[in-house]
């Protein structure tokens, strides 16, 4: 019985255990900068798992998801930040936000919920489209939100940064939220809605003929992924202690999509592995760009190498392993006698 449960939970546990080891090592032995890198990577895991819930299961690429991070980040900032300055710098806020400060936990939860409500409202319209038209319109949504938040001076301080958010995000907290995001993603994936959505990904026409509503299944996933993106936005805001609207724009969109594609966008393992691999590579390169000392000599690679190497990694994956490093499979239960790969796919155990 215990073994069966363990087996069923393996696609999540098998990811969480190695991550826990990494966090433990970073927490015990790592320098501050290593600890920060690990925390950043964990927040990225929440982000990419959020993307995966929609993109991986529906097969529709969305470029607009980081907007929901922005919505949650601003929402939590309004509730928790700078009580003295708020009435002046963000005078357009409604009174319950302008003159009150709320505890971080309810603020974070309500901010994530707001992001999922926003995703639902956007989804009502966007999910009417399919294929490339849907993807393009999500990009439009990204731009619309960026423009609104950049110019809504009295509420968002325009393009200026909001500083002074409480920074309570530790590696362990980020780990816990990443675990929660993975559990949400996995439960959705093995639910009947998740199954129905994956069927629409495989063949929309046949899914309709099987009584599945493509629209509602996609909308459900879009809303749920909005919630997880919101969780990532809250973590991001309270990790850095500062937010500005341009952090939630094209470069974050494309780095997170790269992570998803490199790992393999059809599986949760792929989403997580992609973040780990890309974060590791970029972190090493970033350190080398700023110079490392090798036997007394300061060596630095040219600035910008990071982007070039990432582009090369992405291209190599697209050329040689189009389904990503995991090929869209979940990590298999390691103690079974030889089992067909498909048996463990998407938790059909």
């Amino acid at each position, binding site marked *: 019985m215990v073994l069966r449960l363990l087996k069923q939970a393996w696609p999540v546990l098998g990811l969480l255990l190695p991550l826990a080891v990494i966090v433990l090592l970073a927490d015990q032995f790592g320098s501050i900068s290593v600890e920060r890198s690990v925390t950043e990577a964990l927040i990225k895991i929440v982000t990419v798992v959020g993307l995966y819930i929609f993109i991986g299961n529906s097969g529709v690429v969305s470029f607009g998801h980081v907007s929901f991070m922005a919505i949650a980040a601003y929402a939590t900032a309004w509730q928790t930040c700078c009580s003295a300055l708020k009435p002046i710098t963000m005078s357009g806020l409604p009174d319950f936000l302008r003159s009150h400060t709320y505890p971080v936990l309810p603020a974070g939860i309500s901010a994530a919920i707001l992001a999922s409500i926003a995703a639902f409202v956007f989804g009502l319209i966007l999910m009417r489209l399919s294929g490339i038209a849907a993807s393009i319109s999500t990009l439009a949504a990204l731009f619309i939100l960026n423009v609104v938040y950049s110019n809504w001076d009295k509420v968002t301080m325009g393009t200026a940064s909001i500083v002074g958010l409480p920074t309570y995000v530790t590696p362990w907290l980020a780990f816990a939220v990443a675990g929660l995001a993975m559990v949400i993603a996995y439960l959705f994936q093995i639910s009947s809605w998740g*199954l*129905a959505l994956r*069927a629409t990904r495989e063949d929309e026409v046949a899914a309709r003929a099987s009584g*599945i509503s493509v629209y509602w299944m996609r909308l459900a996933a879009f809303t749920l992924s909005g919630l997880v993106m919101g969780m990532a936005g809250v973590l991001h805001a309270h990790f850095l202690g500062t937010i500005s609207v341009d952090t939630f724009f094209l470069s974050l969109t494309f780095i997170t999509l790269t992570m998803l594609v490199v790992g393999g966008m059809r599986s949760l393992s792929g989403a997580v592995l992609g973040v780990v691999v890309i974060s590791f590579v970029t972190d090493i390169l970033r350190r080398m760009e700023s110079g490392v000392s090798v036997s007394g000599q300061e060596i630095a690679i040219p600035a910008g190498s990071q982007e070039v190497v990432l582009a090369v990694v992405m291209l190599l994956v697209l050329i040689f392993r189009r389904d990503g490093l995991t090929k869209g499979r979940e990590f298999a239960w390691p103690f079974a006698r030889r089992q067909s790969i*498909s048996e463990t796919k998407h938790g059909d155990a």
Partner: protein
Amino acid sequence: MLAQDGGLHARDVHVAFGGLKALKGVDLKLRQGEVLGLIGPNGAGKTTMVNVLTGFQAATTGDVTLDGRSLKGLGPRNVARAGVARSFQAARLFRDLTVRQNLEVAAIGSGRKRKEARAKADALLDWIGCADKAAMLAGSLPYGDERRVGIARALALSPKFVLLDEPASGMNDQECDELMLLIAGIPDKFACGVLLIEHNMQVVMGACRRVHVLDNGKSLAEGTPAEMRANDEVRRAYLGSKNTGSQVI
């Protein structure tokens, strides 16, 4: 009146794609518990007719009723949920899902709970003899199995009527014979009427007691396979000549 109107009934269906008239008045009645063959030469409008019956194609004029209730304006999804399921010419399985999941999806689509859906899927896999392949990815199935799984997926909706679009195409003789028996058994086993669109006459003659012939978008004739075989008009439509018909039909 209503009592007589059970079944899936198409009345005077016309479909025009711009200037091209694909269907020019088809009357077709599929009764509960029978296997009706729908045959006709290429381009006769068979697949268009299936699309009309399953909500994929709106009729330009004419109406389709299920047990007396009009299906007008219901999309494919709602027609499927109302009880008219279909298979596709190119099986269109969900390739990256397992075989069992393929059937589960349809059972879920018909409103079943997960557990029931799974039981339904397993029962159907048993029936088509693919129980041992339940955990395989549908994309890795051999051709013949793919077709049978496509039929089983349609039946997983627990439909009142199932429309099979050329299920035997590309099968060898032995596979055809097995398929014929399977299809002939559907009405009794699933309390479900079957419309069989098929080019392979061996399968049609073996599985159907009644055959409906379409030609050039119109209903040409209907009757037993033997009657159709003897019908001059049918032969002419099929072959464009009345002399060589007996070889094929």
